[in-house]
């Protein structure tokens, strides 16, 4: 049902060091805070952290799956409020849900929620899709 207040099913993505390396290669963002634990600790981080844009890419996948494809997304934005922390040899979760917050002229706005280890990692996350 497409109406304001409708909640979409939750999806859980798995994030690990292997995925961070793959995203670094695919995106060109080789910042060592996303791959090198020693370096991450040296700049005051609790451990290696995921690229904010990897988090956004995965949440984007959640949106495009619901929207019926990448070509149906017209707007997408988020604030990076907390990092997704990725210890070595560990799978961490990225848990995504959404609520429909507006429906007008064939465009649907989704308010997105993304958490990892129970901590909200994106703020003001919204997407507008054609459906």
């Amino acid at each position: 049902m497409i109406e304001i207040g409708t909640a979409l099913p939750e999806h859980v993505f798995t994030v690990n060091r292997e995925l961070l390396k793959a995203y670094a290669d695919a995106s060109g963002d080789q910042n060592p805070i996303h791959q090198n634990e020693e370096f991450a600790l040296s700049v005051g981080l609790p451990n290696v952290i995921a690229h904010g844009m990897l988090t956004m890419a995965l949440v984007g996948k959640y949106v495009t799956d619901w929207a019926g494809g990448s070509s149906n997304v017209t707007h997408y934005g988020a604030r990076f409020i907390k990092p997704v922390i990725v210890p070595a040899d560990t799978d961490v979760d990225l848990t995504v849900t959404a609520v429909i917050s507006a429906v007008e002229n064939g465009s649907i706005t989704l308010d997105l929620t993304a958490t990892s280890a129970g901590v909200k990692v994106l703020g003001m996350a919204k997407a507008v899709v054609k459906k």
Partner: protein
Amino acid sequence: MLNPDSVGRTFEGADSITVTQSEIDAFCAVIGEGDTSVAPPTFSIRISLEQSQSILSDPTVGLDWRRVVHGDQKFEIFSPIKGGDTFSCSTTIESYRVAAGNEIVTVRSDLKTESEIALSSWSTLVVRA
């Protein structure tokens, strides 16, 4: 510190960047997207951040990219990117402020085909004190 004269200015970047299908395929593979006929919504970040980095790090602008943290990101997609598409790029420094010693810069990147804007994206970058 960022040169205040650069705020509000638009900088022309690469005048011809061609997106290859293999770049889209690689990006899709990482996030488990099977349909590679168009690029995922955040794909353009690989172009726009590189453009922003090269413009903002220019000595006449003066941002210290080594201390940059990504604060927020927004995309407005007018026409989805496909393999083989060629774009020109421009970057506009839309706003700048200093809060608690951190510099906060918002830049807009536009990807244009010959006739129109295909995609605009906004990045808020925080240069840590």
